[in-house]
């Protein structure tokens, strides 16, 4: 499938990796739907795409809402007549260890709240599922060639302080196997699914963090710097064009290793 002439929908398209993906597609001739929770981010990205000479619409939506998901798919098809690529970049973090102990008594002083657990599962897992499900529905019913791209994370291996995030992202990483297996079973041959698992990426969330902590993170990255969002966007663009990539999860980490040098 060629990027040029295709129609892409990107959730979380208002900043970070999602913004880079949207702009990569627009630069290469795709028509794009920028979906985000924050209207001012949508407005900015749509204007940037206009300035690039591209075609775009902006849709404010919450990926945890079935009604919003249906609306963003309908709006995209209404504007551009089809849908070929869906990238689920929308994601949040609500970090914390499952248990915290009182230093004096050694007893549990605090538990990770269900609000922190559920918010991350709702956005990062349920939101991705709903995006993939309804995008696939539109592609099947429209008879359009398609690619579904869940965004996982290298922290799918299990990151301390992120039981909610890691649980969601490992599930996202498994989606391509299940989805493509089901497509094969149902005779759906026109849609592929490839997940991307980025490492530490230069999004506002990371570049704005404590610089000493950031430096410590980078000591474990062979590349010696954060992965650029544009590099993530580039690999997604490659996934669109390389039809042999299917039913798998691709890690792009710059060589992230455990402290003793074992690649994660």
């Amino acid at each position, binding site marked *: 499938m060629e990027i040029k002439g295709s129609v892409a929908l990107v959730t979380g398209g208002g900043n970070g990796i999602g913004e880079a993906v949207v702009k990569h597609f627009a630069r290469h001739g795709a028509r794009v739907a920028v979906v985000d929770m924050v209207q001012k981010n949508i407005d900015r990205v749509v204007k940037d795409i206009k300035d690039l000479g591209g075609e775009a619409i902006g849709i404010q939506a919450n990926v945890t*809402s079935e009604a919003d998901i249906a609306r963003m798919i309908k709006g995209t098809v*209404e504007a*551009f007549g089809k849908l070929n690529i869906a990238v689920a970049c929308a994601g949040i973090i609500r970090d914390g260890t499952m248990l915290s102990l009182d230093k004096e008594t050694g007893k549990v002083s605090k538990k990770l709240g269900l609000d922190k657990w559920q918010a991350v599962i709702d956005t990062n897992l349920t939101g991705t599922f709903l995006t993939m499900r309804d995008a696939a529905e539109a592609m099947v019913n429209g008879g359009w060639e398609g690619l579904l791209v869940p965004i996982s994370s290298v922290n799918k291996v299990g990151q301390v302080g992120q039981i909610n995030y890691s649980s969601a992202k490992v599930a996202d990483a498994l989606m391509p196997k299940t989805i493509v297996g089901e497509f094969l079973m149902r005779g759906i041959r026109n849609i592929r699914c490839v997940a991307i698992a980025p490492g530490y990426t230069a999004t506002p969330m990371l570049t704005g963090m404590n610089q000493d902590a950031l430096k410590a993170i980078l000591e474990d990255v062979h590349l010696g710097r954060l992965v650029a969002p544009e590099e993530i966007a580039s690999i997604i663009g490659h996934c669109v064009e390389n039809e042999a990539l299917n039913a798998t999860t691709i890690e792009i980490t710059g060589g992230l290793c455990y402290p003793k040098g074992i690649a994660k």
Partner: protein
Amino acid sequence: MHSFSYNDMQFSVEKRDDRWDISYQLPNGSSALAGAGLFAGLQESEAAARALALIKTIFPVGIRSVGPDVTHPNTIGDLKIVGPDVTHPNFIYWNKDSVSCPKVL
């Protein structure tokens, strides 16, 4: 250029080369793009009709009725703080916009 009002928002559909941009007024008086480079080759009347249909999809007139989210309370000790259930599927579409359903003072 074609302008229309929908749900108390002002939209304009403007031609750029052979394509159309849809912009709207923000509350602070500046404008933002709802869409750029759309409806290649269409005449103004067709583009205006497509734009209105698209805007009605993107900016639905509606009331989101949400109840308390009793399954996910924030807890502070024994105190449970119950917030709105923002994921509740109870979404009521009100299919009349502000033009067809004017305000009654």
